[in-house]
C-alpha cells in the first residue's frame, strides 16, 4: 500500500480548518495533561473516562480528542514526577530520577520546560514514524483471511503474559476471565444466546464502555477512597515555559535517540511507556560523558525519559491501526473508542475508511503541537491541579464515570454493570490480578472466536486449515515465541528484583 501525500495534506485541512476538531483536540490535551498530572489517575483511566464525551460526535472530532488525551496524559505524568516525586503515570516513573532532584535544587521550571519540549519532540517523531510506516504494515495485512485473523488474535493475546505484572498465573487467569466475559451474548455463528439469563441488555455481551469505566475508573476510585492520604502542597516556583537553547543543544542527541527507542518499544505489543523510558534512561546514562552525575538532577535524563515515553504513543498506534491489535491498555481503550464510532481498526480500515486513517495521522501530529502550546501556557495551572483535594475530585469522577456509562445506551443497566465491574476490578487489583489482560481479552476474544468458527465453516470442520496459510503459521509461531520470551523476561526481572531486595536489606542491616 503506497503512502498518499495528497490525502495527508487534505486531512491536515480537515483537522486544522475545522474549529470543532481543533477545540476537541485542545480539550483532550488539557484533560489528558490534567489527568496525567494527578497521581493515581492513569492515562488509561483518562481515556476511559472521557470516551463518553465523544458519543454522537463525528469520528475526526472524537478521535482527535482521544488522541489529545493520550498525548497529553503521557506528558502530564512528568509534572507530578518533577514537583512531588510521584509519577502521575507509570510512564513518568523514570522522570522522577532526574526531574525531582532538579526541582529540589530550585530548577523545577527548567525541568518542566525540558519535559515539555522533549515530550513534544518525541511525540512528533513517534507520530511521523507511525504515519509513514503503518500503511505498509496494513498493506501486508490486507491479504488476511479468517485464518490469519484468528492467528493475529492469538498473537495479540500472547501479550497477556508480558502485561501480567507480578504473577504470570494471575495474568493468564485474568485473561481467561476476560475471554469468558467476551463469550457472554449471542454466539457469533449460530446466534445462540450464551450466559445472558434472559437479560436482553446482555445480548451483545457486556457493553464495552461501562465495563471499561468500571474496571479502570470505579475500581481505582474505591482504592483511592480506602487509602485517602494528605494532598501535597506545591512549593516550587515555575518561571520558565520553554527550555534554553543551551539545554536543547545538550539534550538533542538524547532526545533523538530516545524517540527512536520509544517508538520501537511502543510498537512491540505489551511494552509500554514505562519500559521505553527506563531503556532510554539507561542508554542516555551509558552513552554519557559523565554517567556518575546521573541521579543528581540532569536535564539530559529528563529529556531522554520524556521523549521516549511520548514517542511510545506513536509506536503503539502502529499495531493498533494497521493490525487492530492493541499494544497496551491505553491503545486497548482507544480500540474500544474506534469501535464505538463504528470503525474497526486493522487492515480493512485502510481499505474502507482511508480518510479516517489519514485524519488520525494528522490529528496525532496536531495533538502534539497542541500539547506544546497547552503545556507551556498552562504549566502553572497543572502544577496547582496536583494539589486539588481528593474529597472534591473523587465525587466528581464518580459522577463522570456513572453518567458516562449511562450515556451511550441511556440505560440504567449499564450503571449497574459499571458498579459490578468496579467491585470486581477493586478486588482483583487488591489481590494482584492485573486488569489490562481482561480488557485485551474482551477485545480480542470475539475476534479469535468468530474467525476460528468461520474458518471451520469454510473447511467443513477440518482443523488443518489453521496451518495451511504461511502468514497464519508465522503469526502463531511469533505468538508462541513472544510468550516464551515474556516468561523468561519475567523470570529475569524477578531475579533482579530479588537481588535488589537482598542488597537493600543487607544495606539496612549494616
Amino acid at each position, binding site marked *: 500500500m503506497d503512502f498518499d501525500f495528497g490525502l495527508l495534506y487534505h486531512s491536515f485541512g480537515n483537522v486544522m480548518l475545522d474549529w470543532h476538531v481543533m477545540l476537541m483536540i485542545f480539550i483532550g490535551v488539557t484533560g489528558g495533561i490534567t489527568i496525567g498530572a494527578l497521581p493515581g489517575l492513569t492515562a488509561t483511566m483518562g481515556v476511559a473516562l472521557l470516551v463518553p464525551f465523544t458519543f454522537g460526535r463525528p469520528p475526526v472530532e472524537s478521535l482527535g480528542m482521544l488522541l489529545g488525551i493520550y498525548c497529553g496524559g503521557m506528558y502530564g505524568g512528568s509534572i507530578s514526577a518533577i514537583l512531588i516525586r510521584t509519577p502521575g503515570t507509570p510512564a513518568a516513573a523514570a522522570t522522577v530520577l532526574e526531574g525531582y532532584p532538579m526541582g529540589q535544587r530550585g530548577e523545577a521550571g527548567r525541568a518542566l520546560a525540558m519535559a515539555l519540549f522533549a515530550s513534544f519532540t518525541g511525540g512528533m517523531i513517534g507520530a511521523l514514524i507511525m504515519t509513514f510506516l503503518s500503511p505498509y504494515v496494513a498493506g501486508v495485512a490486507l491479504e488476511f483471511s479468517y485464518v490469519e485473523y484468528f492467528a493475529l488474535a492469538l498473537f495479540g493475546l500472547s501479550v497477556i503474559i508480558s502485561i501480567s505484572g507480578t504473577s504470570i498465573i494471575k495474568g493468564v487467569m485474568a485473561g481467561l476471565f476476560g475471554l469468558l466475559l467476551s463469550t457472554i451474548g449471542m454466539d457469533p455463528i449460530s446466534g445462540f444466546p450464551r*450466559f445472558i439469563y434472559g437479560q436482553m441488555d446482555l445480548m451483545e455481551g457486556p457493553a464495552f464502555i461501562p465495563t471499561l469505566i468500571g474496571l479502570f475508573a470505579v475500581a481505582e476510585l474505591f482504592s483511592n477512597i480506602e487509602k485517602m492520604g494528605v494532598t501535597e502542597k506545591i512549593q516550587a516556583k515555575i518561571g520558565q515555559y520553554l527550555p534554553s537553547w543551551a539545554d536543547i543543544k545538550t539534550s538533542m542527541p538524547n532526545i533523538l535517540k530516545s524517540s527512536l527507542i520509544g517508538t520501537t518499544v511502543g510498537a512491540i505489543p505489551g511494552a509500554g511507556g514505562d519500559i521505553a523510558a527506563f531503556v532510554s534512561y539507561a542508554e542516555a546514562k551509558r552513552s554519557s560523558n559523565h554517567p556518575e552525575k546521573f541521579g543528581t538532577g540532569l536535564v539530559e535524563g529528563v529529556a531522554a525519559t520524556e521523549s521516549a515515553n511520548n514517542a511510545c504513543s506513536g509506536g503503539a498506534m502502529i499495531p493498533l491501526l494497521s493490525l487492530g491489535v492493541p499494544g497496551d491498555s491505553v491503545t486497548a481503550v482507544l480500540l474500544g473508542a474506534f469501535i464505538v464510532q463504528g470503525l474497526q481498526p486493522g487492515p480493512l480500515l485502510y481499505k474502507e475508511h482511508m480518510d479516517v486513517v489519514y485524519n488520525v495521522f494528522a490529528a496525532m501530529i496536531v495533538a502534539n503541537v497542541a500539547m506544546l502550546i497547552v503545556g507551556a501556557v498552562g504549566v502553572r495551572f497543572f502544577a496547582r491541579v496536583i494539589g486539588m483535594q481528593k474529597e472534591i475530585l473523587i465525587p466528581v469522577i464518580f459522577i463522570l464515570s456513572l453518567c458516562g456509562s449511562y450515556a451511550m445506551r441511556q440505560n440504567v443497566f449499564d450503571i449497574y454493570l459499571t458498579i459490578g465491574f468496579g467491585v470486581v476490578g477493586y478486588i482483583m487489583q487488591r489481590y494482584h490480578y492485573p486488569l489490562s489482560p481482561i480488557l485485551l481479552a474482551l477485545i480480542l476474544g470475539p475476534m479469535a472466536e468468530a474467525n476460528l468458527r468461520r474458518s471451520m465453516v469454510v473447511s467443513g470442520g477440518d482443523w488443518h486449515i489453521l496451518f495451511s496459510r504461511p502468514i497464519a503459521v508465522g503469526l502463531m509461531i511469533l505468538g508462541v515465541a513472544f510468550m516464551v520470551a515474556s516468561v523468561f523476561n519475567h523470570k529475569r526481572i524477578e531475579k533482579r528484583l530479588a537481588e535488589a531486595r537482598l542488597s537493600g536489606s543487607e544495606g539496612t542491616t549494616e
Partner: protein
Amino acid sequence: MKIADFIGGGSGIVLGTYVLYEGSKMPADHIMKIGPSYFPDALAIGLIFFSAILIIYAFLGRAKGESESISFKDKGIQRSLISLAAIFAYALLFNSLGYPLTTIMLVGGIMVLLGKRDPKQIAIVALATTFGVWAIFAKLLMLSMPMGILDGLM
C-alpha cells in the same frame, strides 16, 4: 497472600466448572464440529487448570506478593463499602428521582463521607458538578438525562 490465592484459585475452579455445566446445555454442531459451547468450554478448562496451579503454588508456599487482609473494622474499607452502597442507591434512584437530585445527593454524600464538613463548599461543588455534567451530556452531546420528579421543570 496464601489464603487469598486459595480463595482466588477456588473461585476460578468454581467459575470454570459452572461454565462447563452451562456449556453442556448448549446445542452441539455436528457438521463444523465446534458449536456455541466450544470456546467457553476450552476457556473454562484453561481457567480450571491455572486456578489449580495457583492453589498448588500457594500450598507449596510459593505464593507471590503481599496483600493486606480485608478487615471490616478498617476505616478505609468502611468508607469504600459506604461509597459502594451510595452509588448503588444512585443507580436505583436514577430514573425515578432523576439525575439532578440523585447527583446532588451523591456528590454531597461522598464529600461528607471523605471528611468535608463545610456546607457552603459541599453545596457549591455538588451543584456545579451536577450542572456541569448535565450541560455536557444534555446540551453539548444532545443526550437525554432522566429528570425524574423534576420532569417539566428543566
